[in-house]
């Protein structure tokens, strides 16, 4: 480092110390004065905050400004300053409106209610109850729009790392490397469950949840349908799929139709395999219930986003003696599926299902990538816990820094 620079820094330090000394002596002086004042009158007007700066908040859509100020000399924790009021005016208009009030001891505020590309001036007043000091004004500030939100850099990197490992393992598997994936009981059972329907000559019931196509769980359900439909088309089993959303109906029809085309028997496909009932949850459940009781399906699949209906579906399916395979990422519904179904895919397993069933290396590669994500989460938790515990117990400088770093790494600032 340059020697002169360091000297200048030291000089700043001296200045700062002198300045702080002056301020504190001023505070003491002011205190004695106010005590005297309070004796005569109950009105006390605190001193204005010192030096107000306003800056455009970085990496946003030009919608916020950060204001910093030096505390009023009267703000010493004795309660003489009860807060700061932040005022704002468009530059050159002198029409100040109150934006917010913050507690004493706070010297920064982010005003998120500004318009893009309008110049503003801020004023801060120290408050004592209903009384306020004169405002200290800032320089004009112009909120601006940035191209990229660099505050999300940590998210970008972590996201890139996880997405990258998913893509890496997909590519890795494409080259023919063998990947080990453990057996998932619920998915192993799918073939058996379909086989049972063939033997018994009864239909399969497939419910892709009750959410629309804009839920990834529904998409996951439909991708599993793609696998199931292939087998169904090959063995010509009856599949019955009542749905609660029109777009899901369209998608499901498309999916099953293609499976039949793939099996070389497009004429065996019929639109009646997929029926729209109603968007209304219980109207839908009531109808599905009726279908179950009448048609007695051999196998029921519940794969997608479920709500209260999970209980009724699983119970009814149980009572008609169907093999039931359920999967959802709705934690509240899992207890009922776990209790009443033969196999349940919990959360992440639902998303993994279609890749698992495809048995294609590149799809399985993506599961490996997911595992890398979990490993990273676990490593971060372990490292973070160790550093924060040591930082709390023994202090030092490295571990508190590491702790701070880990928290920063996994926090999003907006």
């Amino acid at each position, binding site marked *: 480092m340059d020697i002169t620079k360091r000297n200048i820094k030291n000089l700043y330090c001296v200045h700062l110390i002198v300045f702080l000394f002056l301020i504190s002596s001023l505070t003491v002086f002011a205190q004695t004065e106010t005590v005297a004042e309070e004796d005569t009158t109950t009105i006390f007007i605190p001193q204005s905050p010192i030096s107000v700066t306003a800056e455009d908040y970085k990496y946003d859509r030009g919608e916020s400004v950060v204001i910093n100020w030096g505390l009023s000399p009267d703000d010493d924790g004795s309660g003489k300053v009860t807060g700061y009021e932040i005022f704002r005016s468009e530059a050159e208009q002198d029409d100040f409106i109150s934006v917010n009030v913050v507690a004493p001891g706070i010297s920064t505020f982010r005003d*998120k209610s500004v318009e893009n590309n309008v110049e503003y001036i801020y004023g801060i007043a120290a408050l004592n109850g209903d009384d306020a000091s004169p405002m200290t004004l800032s320089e004009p500030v112009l909120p601006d729009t940035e191209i990229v939100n660099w505050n999300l850099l940590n998210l970008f990197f972590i996201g890139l790392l996880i997405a990258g490992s998913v893509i890496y393992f997909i590519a890795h598997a494409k080259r023919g490397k063998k990947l080990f994936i453990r057996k998932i009981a619920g998915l192993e059972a799918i073939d058996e469950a379909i086989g049972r329907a063939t033997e018994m000559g009864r239909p399969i019931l497939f419910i892709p949840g009750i959410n629309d196509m804009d839920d990834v769980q529904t998409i996951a359900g439909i991708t599993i349908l793609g696998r199931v439909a292939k087998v169904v088309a090959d063995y010509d089993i009856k599949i019955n799929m009542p749905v609660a959303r029109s777009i899901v109906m369209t998608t499901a029809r498309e999916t099953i139709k293609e499976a039949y085309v793939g099996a070389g028997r497009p004429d065996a496909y019929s639109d009646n395999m997929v029926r729209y009932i109603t968007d209304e949850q219980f109207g839908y459940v009531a109808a599905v219930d009726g279908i179950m009781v009448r048609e007695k399906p051999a196998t029921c699949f519940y794969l997608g986003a479920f709500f209260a209906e999970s209980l009724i579906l699983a119970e009814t399916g149980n009572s008609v003696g169907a093999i039931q395979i359920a999967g959802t990422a709705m934690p509240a519904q899992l207890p009922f599926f776990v209790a009443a179904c033969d196999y349940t895919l919990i959360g992440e397993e639902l998303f993994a299902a279609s890749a698992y069933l495809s048995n294609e290396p590149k799809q399985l590669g993506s599961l490996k990538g997911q595992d890398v994500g979990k490993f990273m989460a676990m490593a971060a938790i372990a490292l973070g816990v160790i550093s924060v515990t040591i930082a709390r117990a023994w202090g030092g400088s490295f571990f508190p820094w590491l702790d701070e770093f880990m928290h920063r790494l996994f926090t999003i600032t907006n």
Partner: protein
Amino acid sequence: MNIKEVIAVILIIAFFLCAYFLFPKPVEFSQTVSIILTILLALTLLVIGVMTFMGRYIERRVVFLFVGIALTLPFFMQFDLPVPISPEVQAAYDELEKLPEGSKVLAAFDYDPPSAPELQPMAVAFMKYAFQRGLKIIIMGLWPQGPQQADQAIQTAFEVIPELEDKIKYGRDYVNLGFQSGNEFVILRMGESFKAMFPTDIYNTPYDSIPILKNVKNYSNIDYCFNFSAGKPGTVEWVQGAVDRFNLKMSAGNTAVQAPMAYPYLQAGQLDGLMGGMAGGAEFEKLTEHYDKATVFIKSQSFAHAVVIVFIIIGNVAFFRGRRRKK
């Protein structure tokens, strides 16, 4: 339909007609009768348990019947139960207590009549409390019927505390912005501008001419947010969209089904407080000292829970008995 069923239907209709036209209103059991009924209920359950142990299993309609009785009887009974306060409800209340008079609170009503039994008591207690404290309430809904539920809650509050009706003025002390479709995207867009999402209030008054909304541009001018949620969109979306992205401070009242999912957010500090279901409502009523529906319902709730637990135990008795047989 056999003859017995026909008679049963006629009797049921007769009962309801009598109840409508002839019964004295309201019906109340004295304390002694209440205790006797409770003991009778317990005894029959005990008998069922013993029968199951002996190998005679009951069918599910018996379970239905007992649940029905357990839910209905306490409506007419005279007794009080202690309501313990859980830390998360206390936290929600404390955060509200901290707000100075005149603070602007965004109240998001994301539920509809079917889930109202759980959330309406909280909403009423919240309105009563907020009006008495002099908090300014901005109401909105991501569910089409949410704003109507809010209106009903305010009406109930006015009926219970008549002096509020003179004190509280629409437009100055509260405003109902109505419903906007678009789920979580409404929450995100409100981060830039409320007005873009709600150009007028529910009565078609333009946004800018409503006094309470002066200087309210987006979340940064809101001191607190309270969300009553029965599903999606709801608390999870508010946390993801408003708390995580715009640093809004928030507590939530959830249906009991939703509540367990909100606990990680609570522990992570994304939510300040949480009221779950009828129990949360009863606790909040106790904290705000406005005893109402939830305090009454919690009695039925207790009875029903007890009955369900007894049936779980009976079910397991049957299960273990069956298993021993197999061995």
